């Protein structure tokens, strides 16, 4: 995952709610993109509209996306996270997130930040008025700072610790191998396996 400590950038206001992952990257784009290859398919249909926010020159270079409620609900496609990261975004601030997207983002090092609706509204107003408004997302202190505001946010402590290190999560988990093996020895008998059913 990408390490995340403190990020200072500018924000792109996406004044919409219920932006599902089919909008972030439409399904037909998904098979074409990997986390590391070129291209990303971000807002593949919406970006056809020249007036869509991501197309506006004043928001080129923005690294923090600010959306309304229910951001990235729907499909589990992690390519929604990859598309945002490959477009330069380091964090997404929203009133609420789809659960799977939030977990995917934390696994990859794109920081999902939940802020109250009034803070999001203020961020929208400020960044619409002045797209160069500096916004700081501080994972160490769990704060978002902009203008004269400081907003605290909550983040799962385990995920925070891994993000601050840019951890290899699988490597970390494999350090608990003995516990996993012990669990496997006490699993209930008679549970199904898939192998004998291979056609």
């Amino acid at each position: 995952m990408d390490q995340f400590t403190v990020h200072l950038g500018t924000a792109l206001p996406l004044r919409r709610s219920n932006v599902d992952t089919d909008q972030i990257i439409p399904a037909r784009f998904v098979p074409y993109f990997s986390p590391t290859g070129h291209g990303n398919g971000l807002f593949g249909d919406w970006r056809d509209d020249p007036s869509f926010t991501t197309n506006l020159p004043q928001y080129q270079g923005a690294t923090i996306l600010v959306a309304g409620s229910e951001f990235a609900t729907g499909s589990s496609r992690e390519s929604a996270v990859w598309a945002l990261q490959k477009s330069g975004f380091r964090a997404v601030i929203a009133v609420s997130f789809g659960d799977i997207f939030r977990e995917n983002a934390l696994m990859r090092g794109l920081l999902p930040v939940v802020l109250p609706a009034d803070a999001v509204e203020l961020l929208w107003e400020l960044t619409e008025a002045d797209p160069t408004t500096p916004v700081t997302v501080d994972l160490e202190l769990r704060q978002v700072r902009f203008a004269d505001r400081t907003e605290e946010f909550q983040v799962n402590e385990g995920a925070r610790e891994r993000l601050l290190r840019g951890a290899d999560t699988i490597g970390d988990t494999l350090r608990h191998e003995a516990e996993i093996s012990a669990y496997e020895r006490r699993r209930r008998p008679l549970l199904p396996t898939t192998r004998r059913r291979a056609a």
Partner: protein
Amino acid sequence: MGSTLAQKVWADHTVRGGEAGGDDLLYVDLHLLHEVNTPAAFDGLRAAGRAVRRPELTVGTEDHNVPTTSPLDGFDDPAGRRQAAQLRDNCDAFGIPVHRRGDKGHGIVHVIGPEQGLVRPGMTVVCCDSHTTTLGGLGAVAFGIGTSQVEHVLATQTLWTRRPRDMAVTVTGTLPADATAKDLVMALIAVIGTGGGQGHIIEYRGPAVEALSLEGRMTLCNMSVEAGSKAGLVAPDETTFAYLRTRPGMPQGADWDAEVAYWTSLRTDPDARFDKEVALDAATVRPYVSWGTNPAQSLPLDGRVPNPADFAGATERAAAERALAYMDLKPGRRLTDIGIDTVFVGSCTNGRIEDLRAAAEVLRGRQVADGVHMLVVPGSAAVHRQAVEEGLDRVFTGAGADFRPIAGCSMCCGLNEDRLRPGQRAVSTSNRNFEGRQGKGSRTHIASPAVAAASAVTGRITAPTDL
């Protein structure tokens, strides 16, 4: 204080619990794979030189991208073809069984798991697909994960995740004869919203839930994710055991009795506390259809397109306006006056045999209207075989519908060649009416199989009772 069913299953699978910050390390009993969201997970394993820990608790199937017209190639999309090949190669390389088009065990990932007896009460199941919640219909805790988590589960058979909160949805009374599990869950989401279950596992309870078939329970749990919930769950009971009894690979004799005894113990304690509770009277549920671009934007069929001005709050109003513009609908129009050109029956929501029976029942002795393309895609090869055995294939083709020989997701997500063209309008038995879900510019009205079939007959949104 007692525990909920979800808490019990979670606790049974916690390898390492509640350390700093509340993530549990959860053991995964069954890991399902499909071709779209997995290639990068295997790339990651290879790059790190890691093995798959438990290939015998893992199974793959090609469902999202595959053409459903024939077991032969037929891919329009080279990237789709590449992903299907990658799944086969990756599974072969890591010793994971995989179902290919044309295999007798092939089908949509959430349909074949239960059919093959791989999903049982009290298990934990994950898959790179949000509709993994379907499997909660059997009393398993089942939820969707992303590609990085897939890689983590492949390597460790575990997952770090926070224990969800508990939500009860209690459905009293009896569903009217013309209302289905699909209508019930659409009615629920219309009430609680797309975020109503967020962070929770929903346990569906009450007599109307107990009266549902296993297929109906899977439809109910399938759309739990459309309410934002982590998972949906129905406690196992005699209906569950009767379904499992006929599945392959089930324990026999004393082992079966022992399993039933264990499954019977999987119930929420009477003194358990839920974090959130919702009650619904099944008798009030009518056939539903969506009018907007998220599943909460739905109404009973006898309703009218709502007026955005009637929505409380600027955000909701803007969302409704945007949805109506996209759907090309005017406030006040009767939903049953909306003309359609395409009908899709299928998907992990409504692609099981019961769903095909319901659609065929409406079509029997009738014809699909001129200018309407009705597509029927079985959820699995087994569903297809059963449909043919019951003569449903002849009902569909006799009525002028396009009954497909191969299972797959098809028009639900528009990843194979079955896509709507811009401006086309479908009644679809799938789960999402998002913008562009069934193809760029597509307009989707989600509904039950019976409503879909009735709409195919008239060429407009129609209740079966109005035929």
